[in-house]
């Protein structure tokens, strides 16, 4: 092993060493991440997944603000025990409009990827205000202010515009709206239209009355609306249980 190469060259040249170190560690990242953009099976072909409505999206913002992801994952792994407890494993397609995704890496509380529809709205409200009144052994903190804090809806459209910049198909122009009608159907497309964001949010909150209090729209309304849609967009009864095997 006597090349005409001396590692001294690297060790005595900090600039060269920095460049080569970065090259070496970026190989791992490139090999794992870059192909996902070229492989045509990265995102499963599945019906029903749509971007969040303005109210759900605001609930998602609150979910992030309160740091729920620190204790709750949104990623059901393809293991038997997880299937039995949480349901069908999560698909890449189901978080394609999440920026950033909420997969999480730690479960102090249960996984929430399919919590939508599992409990009633009033359970969520009471559980958020006083978790131990519903689940005695819970270690979750109380979040009573969600019920008493009115939801700030003034910047709803701007938040959607920001997400539009990173690829979520919220529509601004008539052409984009029409494209959404084709892709998601008219009911969903209306919810994704940024100029109507505030109106849509108020309508959904008043109709759903998620926090059980009709006097106003609270942060609880938004958060419960978000939780109730998690994992419900794909109707798995339409697919055989191995429909997504070929995508991995």
């Amino acid at each position, binding site marked *: 092993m006597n090349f005409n190469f001396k590692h001294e060259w690297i060790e005595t040249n900090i600039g060269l060493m920095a460049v080569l170190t970065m090259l070496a560690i970026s190989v791992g990242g490139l090999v794992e991440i870059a192909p996902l953009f070229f*492989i045509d099976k990265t995102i499963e072909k599945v019906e029903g997944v749509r971007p969040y409505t303005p109210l759900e999206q605001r609930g998602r913002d609150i979910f992030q603000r309160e740091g729920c992801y620190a204790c709750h994952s949104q990623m059901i792994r*393809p293991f038997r025990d997880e*299937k039995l407890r949480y349901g069908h494993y999560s698909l890449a397609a189901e978080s394609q409009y999440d920026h950033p995704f909420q997969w999480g890496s730690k479960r102090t509380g249960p996984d929430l990827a399919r919590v939508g529809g599992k409990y009633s709205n009033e359970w969520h409200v009471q559980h958020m205000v006083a978790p131990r009144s519903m689940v005695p052994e819970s270690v979750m903190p109380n979040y009573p202010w969600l019920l008493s804090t009115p939801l700030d809806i003034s910047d709803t459209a701007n938040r959607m515009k920001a997400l539009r910049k990173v690829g979520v198909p919220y529509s601004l122009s008539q052409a984009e709206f029409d494209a959404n009608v084709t892709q998601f159907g008219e009911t969903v497309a209306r919810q994704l239209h940024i100029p109507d964001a505030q109106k849509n949010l108020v309508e959904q909150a008043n109709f759903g009355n998620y926090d059980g209090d009709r006097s106003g729209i609270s942060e609880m309304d938004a958060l419960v609306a978000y939780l109730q849609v998690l994992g419900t967009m794909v109707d798995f009864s339409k697919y055989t249980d191995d429909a997504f*095997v070929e995508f991995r």
Partner: protein
Amino acid sequence: MSEQKPQSQTVQTTGHAWDGDLQEYNNPLPVWWVYTFYATVIFALVYWTIYPSWPLGKGWIGGVSDITYVNSAGETRTHSWNTRALLLEDLNRAAITQKPYFDKVAAMSYEQIAKDPDMSGFILSAGKSLFAENCAPCHQAGGQGVIGFFPNLTDDDWLYGGSFDTIHTTLTGGRRAYMPTFSEVLSGEQIDQLANYVASLSGIGHDTTKAAAGDALFHGETAACYYCHSSNAKGRKDIGAPNLTDNIWLWADVPATDAAEGKVAVIRGVIANGLNKGVMPAWAGRLSPEQIKVLTVYVHELGGGQ
């Protein structure tokens, strides 16, 4: 300091000298380290051959390892190794031990299941874990419920009926309770009279004059409570209107206060504000028909079902 091994004369130094005489030997890597390194390279080559590894165009190299499973349509399929196929294989294996029981559950009537001692063991253990994950968050670990929120499943009082069939309907389709807000149509005095009458039905301390007036309201057309709670106030199971005569309380937390006046006050609160809660989710999409059947029997046995 321990004795240094004598350095062979052929080992070179790195060539630097600090402080005049501080030098550093340039030893080759230990042999064990070099061979371990080569071994990890060989391990990686073997691993790449067996399992999915390198991307290739729009796909990837699947590896030589295969998994064979039977899917929900009954077809036997073979796919290159991945965790999703592995899950199905794992579920197939689990199904071999569980399926006979679930097949029996599907084939038997509720009455047969309840009488079969073999099945009751299965129902108890399978039902317990299903109940713990899906029902206990609301109805609590023992099924005792929470006053003001979720009904007790261990007593004899069934809002929608305690037969196998009605429990099955409740589980499959869910439920939603509703009672109008009576503060919009009745005066405070009338609500107080009604509350006293409702208290009298369960033998709770009340004002007899007010209760008599409440009786008239209950059966009259102004409040028309009898529409839902029926004329004898024993409720209507078809719409989930509770029996008001059994001193079992779900919405008004009557047991929490000792004073009769306090008990009447909480009843007044329910009449005034009405109810638009008591939502039970539908479980048809989330649980399999066999799982729902197991839970039906489990819940039926919890509360001395009817």
